[in-house]
C-alpha cells in the first residue's frame, strides 16, 4: 500500500482553518524574514479528508488487535479494553483541561474533578499493592522503573550510602537492567535456580554491600511465583538494599498477594496491562510507582494532597523529592481509563480477574503439555512458557516458525525468545478475558502446528501466508536502514 506521502497531489487540502476574523494586516505581518524562515515548506502530504480516512482505515485493517482475536503476548497482558473508558477519557471536561490550570493561584479548585481522578486512583492502587504512597507521573512501565531506580538512588544519597549496584534476576524484562543503567547504576545479573525462580542462597552470593537495590517481578517471567520472596526481602533489607517490584505481572496476583506484604519497597504498575487500558500499538501506557512510607518523601513532585475540607491540591513542597519526571501528572487520559476500569471491577472484580488469568493459563499449560515441552510444568500464574527446542532439533522448526504458523491459524503469536532463561521460548499469557472456546481453539492450533512440524515443516517455514506481507527481511532492514521516505 502506498504511503500517504505518495498519495499527495499538489494543492489538495484536507482541512479548512477558521474564518479570518482579525484584520488582514496581521496575517501579512506573519511573513518571517529569511533569517528566521525555513527555506521551503515541509513536504507534508497534500490530501483530502477522504484520502486520509481511506488511507488510515485501510492501513488499520492490516493490524491484528484484541478487538479481532486472541492476542496471548506473554508479559503484555493483552486483555479486553472496555469501550466505555474510551468515551470517558474524551469527556470535554477532562480532555479539554489545560494541565497548568491547577498551578495558577486558586486554580486547583477549578480542577477538582481531574485531581480527584488522580487522587482516587492512588488510593485504589495503594490498597491493591499495599504500598503507602503513589505517583501517577510515570508514563509507561519502563518509565516507572526508571523513576523507581531514581528513588533508590535518592534514598541512598539521602542516607549517605555509597551503593552502585542493582541486582536483576536473569529472567527479568530487558527494561529492568536498562532502567538501572540509565539511572547510573551498575547491573549485576543473578541466575535462577532449576526451580525457575531466584533462590535465597544464590541471592546471598550476589548481595554485597554495594547493592543499592534488587529488581524483581513476582510471579516472574516464566510465570512462577517465588515463594522465597520474603526471605530474599529480609536479606536485602538487612543490607539496606531496596526491593523493587516490576508490576508487569501483577495481573496474576491481585487479591492474593500485595507487593508490600512480600517485602517490596517500590512497585511500578502497568495500567495498560493490569488495568485494562489499551496498548495503542505500543503506547501510551502508564506506569505509576508506589513506595513504602520511608520512600514517600522522595516521590516526584507534584503530589496530590487532600485538605481538611476535602478539597485536593498539588503539593510542591517536597524538599527531598527527586523532582519532576513528567511535565505534569503522567498520562492522565490513561489514568482516567484505569480508574474507570477499577471502579467497574471493584475489589471483587480485580480478584476475579487474577483468578481467571491464572485459571486460563494453567488450563493452557496442561492442554499444551500434551504436545509441547514446558520446562517448568507446574502450577503457574499469569503466563506459561513453552520451549520449541525439541522441534528445532528434531524437525528444524524454530520458535519463529511456530509463531508465524499461529498467525495463519488466526492468532497473534505469543512473546518469542523470551525469557532468555528458556531456549526457544514461547511465552503465553491468555489473560482472563479470553473465553474457553478460544483457549481450546488455540490449543488445537498449537497441536496442528506440532503435527506440521513433524509432517510438513516446510509449511511452517513458509508461514505466514494469510497476511498482507510474508516474512520480512529484517536483517536487510537493519543493515541498510530506510526509516524515512526519501523526498
Amino acid at each position, binding site marked *: 500500500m502506498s504511503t500517504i506521502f505518495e498519495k499527495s497531489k499538489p494543492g489538495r487540502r484536507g482541512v479548512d482553518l477558521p474564518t479570518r476574523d482579525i484584520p488582514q494586516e496581521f496575517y501579512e505581518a*506573519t511573513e518571517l524574514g529569511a533569517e528566521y524562515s525555513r527555506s521551503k515548506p515541509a513536504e507534508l502530504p497534500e490530501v483530502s479528508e477522504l484520502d486520509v480516512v481511506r488511507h488510515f482505515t485501510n492501513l488499520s485493517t492490516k493490524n491484528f488487535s484484541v478487538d479481532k482475536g486472541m492476542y496471548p503476548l506473554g508479559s503484555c497482558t493483552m486483555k479486553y479494553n472496555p469501550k466505555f473508558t474510551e468515551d470517558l477519557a474524551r469527556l470535554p471536561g477532562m480532555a479539554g483541561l489545560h494541565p497548568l490550570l491547577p498551578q495558577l493561584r486558586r486554580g486547583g479548585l477549578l480542577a477538582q474533578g481531574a485531581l480527584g481522578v488522580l487522587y482516587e486512583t492512588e488510593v485504589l492502587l495503594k490498597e491493591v499493592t499495599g504500598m503507602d504512597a503513589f505517583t501517577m507521573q510515570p508514563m509507561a512501565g519502563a518509565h516507572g522503573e526508571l523513576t523507581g531506580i531514581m528513588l533508590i538512588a535518592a534514598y541512598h544519597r539521602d542516607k549517605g550510602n555509597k551503593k552502585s549496584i542493582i541486582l536483576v534476576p536473569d529472567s527479568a524484562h530487558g527494561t529492568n537492567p536498562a532502567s538501572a543503567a540509565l539511572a547510573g547504576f551498575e547491573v549485576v545479573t543473578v541466575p535462577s535456580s532449576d526451580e525457575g525462580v531466584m533462590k535465597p542462597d544464590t541471592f546471598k552470593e550476589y548481595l554485597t554491600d554495594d547493592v543499592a537495590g534488587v529488581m524483581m517481578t513476582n510471579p516472574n517471567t516464566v510465570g512462577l511465583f517465588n515463594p522465597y520472596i520474603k526471605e530474599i526481602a529480609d536479606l536485602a533489607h538487612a543490607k539496606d538494599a531496596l526491593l523493587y517490584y516490576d508490576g508487569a505481572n501483577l495481573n496474576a496476583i491481585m487479591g492474593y498477594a500485595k507487593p508490600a506484604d512480600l517485602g517490596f519497597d517500590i512497585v511500578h504498575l502497568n495500567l495498560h496491562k493490569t488495568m485494562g487500558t489499551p496498548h495503542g500499538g505500543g503506547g501510551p501506557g502508564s506506569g505509576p510507582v508506589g513506595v513504602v512510607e520511608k520512600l514517600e518523601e522522595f516521590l516526584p513532585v507534584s503530589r496530590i494532597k487532600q485538605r481538611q475540607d476535602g478539597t485536593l491540591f498539588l503539593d510542591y513542597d517536597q524538599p527531598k523529592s527527586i523532582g519532576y519526571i513528567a511535565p505534569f501528572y503522567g498520562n492522565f487520559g490513561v489514568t482516567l481509563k484505569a480508574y474507570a476500569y477499577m471502579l467497574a471491577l471493584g475489589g471483587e472484580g480485580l480478584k476475579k480477574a487474577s483468578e481467571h488469568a491464572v485459571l486460563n493459563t494453567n488450563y493452557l499449560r496442561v492442554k499444551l503439555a500434551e504436545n509441547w515441552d514446558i520446562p517448568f510444568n507446574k502450577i503457574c500464574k499469569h503466563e506459561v512458557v513453552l520451549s520449541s527446542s525439541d522441534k528445532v532439533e528434531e524437525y528444524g522448526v524454530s520458535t519463529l516458525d511456530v509463531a508465524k504458523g499461529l498467525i495463519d491459524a488466526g492468532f497473534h503469536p505469543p512473546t518469542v525468545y523470551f525469557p532468555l532463561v528458556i531456549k526457544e521460548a514461547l511465552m503465553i499469557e491468555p489473560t482472563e478475558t479470553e473465553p474457553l472456546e478460544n483457549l481450546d481453539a488455540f490449543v488445537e492450533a498449537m497441536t496442528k502446528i506440532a503435527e506440521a512440524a513433524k509432517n510438513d515443516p516446510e509449511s511452517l517455514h513458509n508461514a505466514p501466508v494469510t497476511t498482507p506481507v510474508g516474512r520480512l527481511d529484517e536483517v536487510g532492514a537493519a543493515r541498510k536502514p530506510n526509516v524515512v521516505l526519501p523526498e
Partner: protein
Amino acid sequence: MDFVPHTEEERARMLEAIGVGSTEELFQDIPPELRPKSWNLPQPLSEFEVRRRLEAMADLNAHDLTCFLGAGFYDHYSPAAVDAILRRGEFYTAYTPYQAEVSQGTLQAIYEYQTAIARLTGMDVSNASMYDGGTAMFEAAMMAVRKTKKTKLLICTSLNPIYRVMLRSYTANLHLDLVEADLTKTEDLQKALDDKTAAVILQNPDFFGRIHDLSEHAAQAKAQKAMVIMNTNPLALAVTKTPGEMGADIAVGEGQVLGLPLSFGGPYLGYMATTKKLMRSLPGRIAGRTVDHDGKVGYCLTLQTREQHIRREKASSNICSNQSLCAVGALVFMSLMGKQGMVDLARMNMAKAAYAKKRLLAIESVENVDDGPFFNEFRIKLPIDARKAVSMMIDKGIAPGFPLGRYYPDQPNNLLVAVTEKRTKEEIGYLAEGLEAVL
C-alpha cells in the same frame, strides 16, 4: 462489571482439566502468611454508574475557560477525523508491532510519522516517539553524553522550565554538570562553552514565544565539538528555520500541538529526530521499510540492537512502550493539515497572537517585554503581580495566560499569553477588556 466470560460450568471443566479442586488451589504457591490482610476496595459498579461518576467529576473542572494558557502546551483544534481514526480498535487495541506481518498498519503509520517528523524538522531520521518533550530532551542529552563522552550540559534558560527541572531530576545520579544560562546571545554562549560541553540545549520558539535563528549558536557549539540539541514546536516548524537548517544534531520537542488534546497533561508525544550519522545512537523504537521474500514492500521494527529487549543494560534507552497511538494521531493531523495547511495554521496562530499583543499593549498600564518575531505566544508586563491578575481574570471566565513568576522569580509581573487559531477576535477583545478592567 468484570470482563471475565467464564460460566460456572466452564470454570469447573477447566479446574478438572488442570487437576485442581478450586481456583484457590491455583494460588497454593503463594504462602498463606503472604496473603493480603485487607482488600478494602469498592464494590463493583455498572458502566452506567461509572459514567455518571466521571461525568460528575468532569463537571467540577473549569475546562470551558477561554484559554490563553500555553507555556508549551496549547489549545489547538483537532479535526474530528483524527479521533475517528484513533478510535479504530485495530489501532488502539494492538500492541507494539513485534510481529510485523500482522502489524503492517501500525508499522507503516509509524514509518510515515517518522517521515513527517524528519521533513518538519529538516533532520534525516526520526524515532517512533518518546513519552513527551521533556523525556525526549533527557534522552537527547544522554545521547550527546554517550556520543561525546563529555559531561557538561549547557542549557539555555529560555528552555521550558519544566524541561530544565526534568533534566535535573533525571541526571541527579549521573555525575553530570548542568549549567543553565541565558544563551540567547551568541556572546554568552561563547563564554559558557568549553571542551567539557557535551551538548548545548536551546529552544525555538523559546519559552517566551520568541523566534530565533540559532545557526550561529550551532556553529559555535560544533566548533567546540559539543552537540546541539534543539527543542522546537512542531507547528512553528511549518514556518521557522528548522533544526536541520540551523545545524542541530538532535531535534526534540512536544508533539501535543499536532492534534492531541490537552487532557490535563497527557498522553502527549515527544518527538525526536537526528542526523543519519547519529541514527544508530537514537533511543526508542524505529520502523523501517524492507521487503518480504517475494520482494513485496513491508515494514518492521528495525535497528533493534539499540534496544533494551536485546541489549539490556547496554541499550541506548530503557524505553519500551512509547506513545505510538499519539504518533499515529499526530500523523493523521499532519496529513489533514498538509503542506500548506500547516503553514496557514502556523500563520494564523502568529497573526492572532500579534493581534492580541497589539490589543493588550494598547492598555495603558501594560508594557511590552520583547521585540522581534514571535510565534503564538508573547510576554507582557503588568503593573501588578501577574498571579493576582490571572486569578481575577479566571473569575471572569478567562485564563489569560501563564504568570511567569512561577518559574522566573525575577518576572513576577510578566504574563505569558498564548493565542491559538481557536481564539476569536471577540474572545481576544474580552481578554483585553477584562484585563484592562482588573488592572
